[in-house]
């Protein structure tokens, strides 16, 4: 590993902070399109980070991977989701009262970030600089995504939550394993893409049958 210039280290820190802010952006917003914009920024930052790591570690595959993420995750997936939200025939395009009010969800996400930093300390990963910076970030991305799925009422927000978890996972993979072999990388991307397509089909079906994509009317199968 060549000597990392100080500027690169605080560059890493800056990019980590920006990524967290973008994730908080998703948590705070209410409208469908706001989520998707926030998600798009997050993915762009993510691909920037990947390029930065590629620059630092000098592994050329990472450049392809960051290009791939930019292409698929930042452009195609949001476009698909925008198309879906336009086609939804439910008039109001925003989430009125999620299970957890926005203010509390911000506090909870901050708590989750703190927890992921505490968890990262437990793990005996100290050697590499990039890992020690980005490991807690990926954990927090993962837990915030999980929290979004739990606390929101609209199906679309749950998809966005799912994608945030995927981003956290992807960051963790790139940081820790410097991108395992390309086949697995492509396999991952394909999975996420198909996942989004299927969930958008389901979204269409839901809006046709329930004419609203609120999770409330998805509770008929239960043990009462």
């Amino acid at each position, binding site marked *: 590993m060549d000597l990392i210039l100080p500027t690169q280290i605080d560059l890493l820190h800056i990019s980590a902070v920006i990524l967290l802010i973008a994730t908080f952006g998703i948590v705070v917003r209410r409208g469908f399109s706001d989520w998707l914009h926030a998600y798009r920024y997050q993915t762009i930052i993510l691909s920037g980070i990947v390029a930065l790591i590629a620059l630092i570690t000098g592994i050329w595959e990472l450049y392809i991977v960051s290009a791939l993420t930019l292409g698929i995750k930042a452009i195609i997936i949001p476009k698909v989701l925008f198309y879906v939200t336009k086609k939804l025939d439910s008039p109001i395009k925003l989430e009125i009262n999620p*299970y957890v009010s926005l203010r509390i969800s911000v506090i909870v996400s901050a708590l989750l970030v703190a927890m992921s930093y505490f*968890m990262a300390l*437990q793990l005996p990963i100290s050697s590499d600089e990039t890992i020690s910076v980005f490991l807690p970030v990926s954990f927090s991305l993962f*837990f915030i995504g*999980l*929290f979004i*799925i*739990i*606390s*929101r009422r609209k199906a679309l927000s*749950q998809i966005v939550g799912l994608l945030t978890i995927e981003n956290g996972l992807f960051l963790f993979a790139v940081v820790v394993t410097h991108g395992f072999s390309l086949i697995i990388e492509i396999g991952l991307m394909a999975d996420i893409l198909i996942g989004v397509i299927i969930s958008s089909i389901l979204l269409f079906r839901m809006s046709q049958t329930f004419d609203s994509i609120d*999770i409330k009317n*998805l*509770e*008929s*199968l*239960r*043990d*009462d």
Partner: protein
Amino acid sequence: MSENLSILYIIFAFFSLGVTLGLFTRGQKYHAYFTYIPSTFASFLTIILSVTIFSSEDIHLTFFNIQHLFDFEIFIDGVAAFFLLIIGLISFAVSIYSLSYSKKFDDKKNNSALGMLFNVFIISMILVVISNNVFFFLVFWELMSLTSFFLVIYEHENKNNLKSGLTYLVMTHLGTGFIFASFILMYTQTGSFSFDSFRDVAIIPQYVKDIAFVLAFVGFGTKAGMVPLHIWLPKAHPSAPSNVSALMSAVMLKIAIYGIVRYLFDFNAIGSSPDYVWLGVGIVVIGSISALVGILYALVENDIKRALAFSSIENVGIIFIGLGLSVVFAAFHLLSLSVLAFIASMFHTLNHSIFKGLLFMTAGSIHYSTHTKNIEDLGGLIKKMPWTAMMFLIGSIAIIGLPPLNGFIGEWLTLQSLLAVFQIPSNILQVTLAFAILAFALTIGLAGATFVRLFGITFLSKSRSSKAINAVEVPRLMLIGKAILASSCILLGILPFIGINLIVSAFDLPYTPSSPFETISITNTVDGNFASLLMPGVLIVFISVLVGIFAFVRIIGGKTKTIKYGTWDCGFGNLSEKTQYTATSLAEPIRRIFGIFYKSHNDIDVDFYAKENLYLKKSIHVISTTRNIFDEKLYGKVISGSLFVLDKIRKIQSGKVNAYILYIMITLIALLLFVGFGTHE
């Protein structure tokens, strides 16, 4: 040795012949003969096999193994042969009986299934008794319960048959769970599943054998119908067809007793040190409670087969008293008394299987000709079905334990072993066992009352309903079936030494086998004659007195005529059958005395000729019901309580996706914390 084995193969061949024929002769006219004749031959051969085993040495061989630990091995020693005898004798009589009894099911259902299951049921019982490996014992044990379950719900059109079938299956499965746990406990010590390894006592520590025996006792007790776990028996036996309920009650309960005897005898789970007394006392206490509770419920039961099922619980209780006493005496090294108690309980097992089989068959023939089991609308059947009445009378005299027949001997032996309690050193024990005598004596009294009621109401006086009026005697084959058991009742009663020698040689007990006409004598401590009984002698006294009195009456009285005339009706004119005592009213005084137990409740509705005038009553209708405290109080509470708890747990399936993801997050964090702290110690 080899010819014993060949008999065994022929037995299996005949039974499987019965099964296959049962399957393929579905609709034909003579299907009953095809299914039941093979089973008659096979059961006859079983009797011969068991008798030969008594004399020659045991069969012990391994056939094949399906896994390195599960090998199908057979071990027929004296103990197994004794129970084989019971199975053989009763299924021989019942198969002849069902040759014509199964005609009753000809019209409604494909009764070839009945024939097929009947044969499979008997084979599985035989296999249970002879198998020597835990896995195959449990497989055949549950196969026996499964086939008897299918037979219980044979008429599954009416709802409560299904419900009782389910209770039966679940309770037996609970019992098997306990038996399984006890066998596996023994397996953990010996490392192999075969019973031989359980037999060499050295390597199994004492406390393991204690726990294993207690678990096995509860497991086998459920199947035998011990009190707290008996609720399935009065439900399951009556709903099965009568030839099957005869087999179930007479033989299947004994297979459960076989299990306990195997544990007591072979795996000698009971060491001979005084700290085993609490086990023996426990068995005696449970036995006396089951006896008392069983007979109390039999007394007020109006369905004849339910009453007989309850009386099976009582008799199983008596058998347990005998077993418990033999354990208590063994614990105090009083070997001769422990042998006496053991002979008493085994003799009672043999007797009970005989007369209970007889009684259920007679109940079956009543059901066959009058199509009803409720004794309230029977009556006067002795005139229409004289032979069946005779058989029922013999059966009831035997079951009550009245002198000439075999029940008396069993009871007499159990009473003697109870009376011999005074030789036990510790005082507290003597007093507790004295209470057991009180319970046992009360049971004998109540049994007498029950069978007076059952016999009196069903057979004597005027018939109470049209069903009873046009009843007709059952076909001859059924009578032969019953006659076999009735004659063995009388035989064992008059010459009890046959039974006692049989048991002594089967279990090779250190009891000096008395000469054929020798009295069954027990000497007390000061070797005076504590008690002795010579049944043939009693018979001689009977005959001589009869001849004497007959001569006396003939000489003094001279020839007198007997005139038939109506019963004394205080001049009111012809009495309808309404005026005679019904079954409920006959037991009413006793129900009043044991009120706290029965919680009996009479609801009376009276209707009047005219509303205003309350004195002119048109009719009074009294329905008196007793509640079964076990069903409602004990089981009702337990089931509703557990359902309440289960209901709470299942609420987690709430239907909300967010909640489901929350569960995953919580489990993740909980496990991480569980690990997180783990690493830092």
